[in-house]
């Protein structure tokens, strides 16, 4: 806490309390900040959607980080818990919220101690509690631990889990801004998103908006992992070429192998081939290349493995994590896994690819939450860009295997 304050921590609160809450919302809107959890929805807009004059309202910080490849929030929680608290105070003041929860995945049990200690320090300093810094504004923040379920990172499933239920997604609408936690208006933001807010209040929306590209403002934490020499979390300005991340920041490919593919935004987004490695790392450029920025997890794959192996691993993840509520996802994740597994056992044939595409078509946009779409992404993109990797397995099929 001492170090954080010495470096200017919590200074934004005085600035914020001198303004009306709506002015903060307007500043966040003007900054162009978009949700850093995966969907990239404009944060200020999300805040402004809260049902008018309905109280109490809640803030839920999504710290359920479990998208394969992503580990930026864990680092923020571990090394800078006060930044998150400051961001949550600002958001709560702007949205007139008096209770906030930090929903952390159960595996972050150790981190919850760090977070609770930071919350105690903030309480002792009067940054939390009643009448914060004489502003008349009250806020309490609590931590809440999940217990092992990827799906709870989906916002409506997170709410069900926080209410003490099974973490199954809800039908939308109503969106959480209208009916969220305990059926009250609720803001749900990712850790990284909330951590950006103090900068915007301190330095002004214009300064943040000056960074990045026209539509993707500011900076982004990118977790670079996989076949790179120096994996790590790197903060880049939006629009930096992906190749810069892989070859400069992360030190290039292990053993000086050749880049084969990369998944730019966590396992739920389509992979791209090496030929597109110069794509600028921002929402629009990655979308134009047929993928998404997602959670900002860049997974780098070299030419030492067959893409089907990586795809199967992701399929077994989605099969395991499907909550089972929607039939296309519950059945589809399993079928995709079975078929790709058969292909890898040299028991497949060319028609299996059509079958995979057919199943994918019946899963996309047909479920309550995007888990099914996430599962489809690696299958469709691997077939599109690395069809020959599948065909490798069809060459050595023993006679009589396929009936």
């Amino acid at each position, binding site marked *: 806490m001492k170090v954080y304050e010495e470096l200017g921590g919590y200074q934004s609160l005085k600035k914020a309390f001198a303004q009306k809450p709506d002015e903060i919302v307007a500043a966040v809107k003007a900054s162009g900040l978009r949700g850093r959890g995966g969907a990239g929805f404009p944060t200020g807009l999300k805040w402004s959607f809260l049902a008018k004059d309905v109280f*109490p309202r809640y803030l839920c910080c999504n710290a359920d*980080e*479990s*998208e*394969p*490849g*992503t*580990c930026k*929030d*864990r680092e923020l929680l571990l090394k800078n818990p006060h930044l998150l608290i400051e961001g949550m105070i600002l958001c709560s003041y702007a949205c007139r919220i008096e*209770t906030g929860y930090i929903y952390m*995945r*159960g*595996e*972050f*049990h*150790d981190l919850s101690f760090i977070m609770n200690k930071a919350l105690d320090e903030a309480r002792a300093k009067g940054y939390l509690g009643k009448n914060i810094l004489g502003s008349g504004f009250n806020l309490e923040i*609590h931590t*809440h*631990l*999940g*217990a*092992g*379920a*990827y799906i709870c990172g989906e916002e409506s499933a997170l709410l069900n*889990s*926080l*209410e*003490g*239920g*099974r*973490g*199954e997604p809800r039908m939308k609408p109503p969106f959480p801004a209208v009916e969220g936690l*305990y059926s009250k208006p609720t803001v749900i933001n990712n850790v990284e998103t909330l951590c950006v807010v103090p900068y915007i209040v301190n330095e002004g929306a214009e300064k943040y908006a000056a960074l990045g590209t026209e539509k993707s403002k500011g900076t982004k934490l990118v*977790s*670079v*992992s*996989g*076949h790179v020499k120096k*994996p*790590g*979390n790197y903060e880049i300005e939006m629009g930096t070429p992906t190749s810069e991340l892989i070859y400069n920041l992360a030190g290039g490919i292990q053993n000086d192998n050749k880049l084969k593919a990369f*998944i730019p935004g966590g*396992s739920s987004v389509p992979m791209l081939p090496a030929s597109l490695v110069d794509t600028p790392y921002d929402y629009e450029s990655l979308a134009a290349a047929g993928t998404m920025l997602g959670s900002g*997890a860049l*997974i*780098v*794959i070299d030419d030492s*493995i067959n893409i089907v*192996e*990586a795809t199967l*691993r*992701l399929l077994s*993840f989605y099969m*395991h*994590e499907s*909550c089972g509520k929607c039939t296309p996802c519950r059945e589809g994740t399993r079928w995709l896994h079975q078929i790709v597994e058969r292909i890898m056992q040299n028991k497949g044939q060319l028609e299996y690819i059509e079958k995979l595409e057919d199943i994918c078509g019946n899963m996309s946009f047909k479920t309550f939450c995007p888990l099914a779409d996430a599962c489809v992404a690696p299958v469709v993109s691997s077939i599109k860009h690395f069809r020959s990797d599948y065909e490798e397995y069809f060459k050595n099929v023993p006679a009589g295997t396929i009936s």
Partner: protein
Amino acid sequence: MSDYKFTEDQEKEIAGILAKYPVKTSALLPLLTLVQRADQVVSPEAMVVISKKLDISPAYVQSVMSFYTMYHTEKVGKYMILFCINISCQLNGCDKLLEHTAKKLNIKVGETTSDEKFTLHREECLAACTEAPMMRVNDTYYGNLTEQRIDQIIDSLD
């Protein structure tokens, strides 16, 4: 029906947990976690006591509990080794390391050693991909694993 009782310290902790939420049911996951940390498992008796505390049915408690992978109904070893096998760890050779670990402990993945010291499980992404390959032993994360490092870690636990 049940002899299960919370200790005085636990009762205090539970009061603190309940104070966090306007609706009691929200305390369900924290209470299950509290019980498991004390007992290593959540027994049917404990479920009944929790259900009474929160004014919900035992069946509801069990339904919620079964949804989450971190709760156990059967005893596990003193050290729970969760070995990440997701993509970033896969790319960095976790399969061989997992095989090595199982061999060292002389069990199959999913089993507990006969002295009930270690349980070994495959685990999905634990959000430490930049330190791949990695594993979690109880609450501690160990990254950048090699066969030697795994041996050292396991040998250092008593």
